[in-house]
């Protein structure tokens, strides 16, 4: 919108003076002044602004009519009164709410959006309890507009955010307003449902419950979910996400705004990633091999048993994944040092990339792992084939070995498996140390643009499984009683930045929730609040 040299403009919003670049819409200036002007059709990530919901009207001194603040550009010495000060504005907004609710079904109790609904919120705020409509409501029904997205026409307020996301951002004119007036609804061309790889964003931009994702429908109420800030593990883009969890299950993943990485968006493959990542038989307790059989034991017993038998300094082979955090991978390199193993390998799944024309920095990347850059930086090398242990030592971190031959590792003299899933090959291990799976630990990834980003634990790992960096550290302490404990993820990250020059001057704290570029030494400018 404006570069560093843009002319600055000063105005007053509800008595608060703000200075913003010329051309800024009033609604954004108001936000700077601490006032959120209610709105529906305006979305900061969608360039087209039809100003059609008429909810963001404000009073501007000298203007005879209320003006839509989403398109009205600031002017020097403009005096703006929002709903906080202007009776007329409140009156207009209340009327919009009443109009929107006229034909809106009162199905909040079964609506996915309830609790996170801009119609519900503003209706509550403007506070008209009863409808004055005594005539029959218009009933329009519902439709499927993608194989995973349903459209509830009765709930729709025709803000056209979804249509404009597809037009402006997805670059595909496939979702439309059909008919006109009070009969208008959102639709596709018959037989041409949405199949765009970023279509799921239309559900996010819907301010009400008109568009719902079929994977989520009826799964959880907004207030029953916990949310943790995460980073998508679906590819090397590293989209910032909010992980919605109910009863320790991921029920939904939504993009979390980060101007430098993914804006307001993410791809559909990413949405499914975390839901599917932890499928399979989970490793939930430590196990050691006694008399040829794997036997569950306590952490204390397992660590002592493994430490006693670990073939230190004898070399061997190691396998990791690029889905593990930098903290875990780095700690693991220390263990490899003890074992005398020189590096390890990881596999990268690749797929077709998918672009988002209206937000070109976001792309579903070919590299379908989140931390390939981090793994390479920490000394691991990409190799599809699993390393052959021969008769020596095999150490596996996090690679579930799902595609491995069931006999893989059986020939190893010592096979330490730190993993979250128990596959056929994992059963050949000498010892299994259970680690947290996707979404179950804190940590950082390095994305394709060399940006280090924090993700936070969203769920409890099963049983007594722990984050890998914690497990490996405990094992290292078992081996070396002098070693200082690493008590939390901050310390684990500090160990990475102390040991790896590219991470120097970065700290867990300075990364914040938006991340920072490797070697930058200071959090990158994100432009976001």
């Amino acid at each position: 919108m404006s570069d560093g040299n843009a002319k600055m403009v000063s105005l007053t919003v509800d008595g608060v003076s703000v200075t913003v670049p010329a051309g800024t819409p009033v609604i954004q200036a108001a936000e700077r002044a601490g006032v959120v002007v209610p709105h529906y059709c305006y979305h900061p990530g969608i360039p087209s602004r039809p100003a059609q919901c008429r909810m963001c009207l404000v009073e501007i001194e000298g203007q005879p009519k209320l003006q839509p603040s989403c398109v009205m550009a600031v002017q020097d010495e403009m005096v703006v009164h929002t709903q906080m000060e202007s009776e007329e504005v409140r009156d207009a907004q209340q009327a919009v709410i009443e109009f929107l609710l006229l034909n809106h079904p009162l199905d909040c109790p079964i609506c996915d959006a309830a609790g996170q609904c801009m119609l519900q919120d503003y209706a509550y705020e403007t506070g008209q309890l009863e409808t004055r409509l005594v005539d029959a409501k218009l009933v329009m029904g519902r439709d499927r507009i993608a194989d995973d997205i349903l459209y509830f026409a009765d709930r729709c307020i025709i803000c056209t955010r979804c249509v404009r996301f597809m037009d402006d951002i997805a670059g595909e004119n496939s979702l439309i307003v059909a008919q006109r007036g009070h009969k208008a609804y959102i639709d596709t061309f018959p037989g041409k449902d949405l199949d765009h790889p970023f279509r799921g964003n239309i559900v996010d931009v819907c301010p009400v419950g008109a568009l719902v994702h079929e994977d989520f429908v009826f799964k959880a109420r907004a207030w029953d979910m916990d949310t943790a800030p995460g980073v998508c593990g679906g590819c090397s883009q590293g989209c910032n996400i909010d992980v919605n969890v109910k009863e320790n299950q991921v029920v939904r993943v939504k993009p979390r705004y980060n101007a430098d990485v993914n804006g307001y968006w993410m791809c559909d493959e990413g949405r499914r990633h975390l839901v599917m990542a932890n499928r399979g038989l989970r490793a939930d307790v430590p196990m050691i091999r006694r008399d040829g059989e794997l036997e569950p034991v306590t952490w204390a017993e397992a660590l002592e048993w493994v430490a006693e038998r670990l073939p230190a300094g004898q070399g061997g082979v190691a396998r990791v994944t690029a889905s593990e955090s930098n903290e875990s991978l780095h700690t693991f390199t220390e263990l490899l040092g003890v074992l005398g193993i020189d590096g390890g390998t990881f596999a990268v799944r690749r797929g077709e990339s998918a672009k988002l024309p209206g937000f070109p920095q976001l792309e579903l990347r070919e590299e379908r792992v989140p931390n390939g850059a981090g793994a390479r930086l920490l000394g691991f090398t990409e190799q599809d084939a699993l390393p052959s242990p021969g008769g020596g030592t095999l150490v596996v971190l996090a690679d579930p070995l799902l595609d491995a031959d069931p006999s893989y590792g059986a020939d190893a003299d010592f096979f330490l498996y730190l993993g979250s899933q128990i596959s056929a090959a994992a059963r050949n291990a000498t010892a299994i140390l259970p680690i947290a799976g996707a979404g179950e630990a804190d940590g950082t990834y390095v994305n394709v643009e060399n940006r280090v980003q924090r993700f936070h634990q969203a769920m409890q790992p099963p049983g007594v499984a722990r984050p890998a960096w914690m497990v490996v550290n405990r094992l290292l302490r078992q081996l070396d009683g002098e070693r200082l404990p690493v008590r939390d993820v901050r310390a684990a990250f500090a160990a990475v930045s102390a040991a790896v020059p590219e991470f120097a001057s970065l700290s867990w704290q300075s990364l914040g929730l938006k991340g920072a570029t490797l070697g930058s030494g200071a959090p990158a400018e994100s432009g976001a609040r």
Partner: protein
Amino acid sequence: MSDEKRPDIHPAVVSAQPFQLASRRPVDRLFDDDEGRDRLEKAISRYPEKKAALLPMLAYAQERNGWISPEAMEEIGGALELTPAYVRSVATFYTMYNKHPTGRHIIQVCTCTACHLCGADDVFEAFLEATGTRPGEMSDDERFMVMEAECLGACGFATAVQVNNRYFENVTPESVADVLAALDDDEEA
């Protein structure tokens, strides 16, 4: 029928051809014959953007087939570099574009303010009775379809009735039979 000789149309008026006719010349593909290609090229030539030829081409589809089928929308979209969805969005905005097959004679009775004052509701009822149909329903012989219309712009001559491309003015319930009798299934533009 589609290969019958049509008069050459001046490009300046190609976007303004009557498109609601009793006699139709159905065609599967709009732009596979010379006439269709000619219409398309001429219409496109009148605007700096291809998209502007959309309304004229929707009209042409209706002129030929009596309605605008989903297939026609796709074909028009292809010719004008628009998605079929976009074409549908535009087609459904305008009430004169038939999105379903209709009777040969679309009888639109203006019942808007001025005609309403002058008894248009009775004229409308008289048409329904005379054709034995309900509003918007095709008659059994597929000849008629009677609808209420918004203002037809002939308020001084209430009740105004439009049948396809023709106007009938000062229609009364008594003259409904005369109007129906005047309709010729082979009428041309």
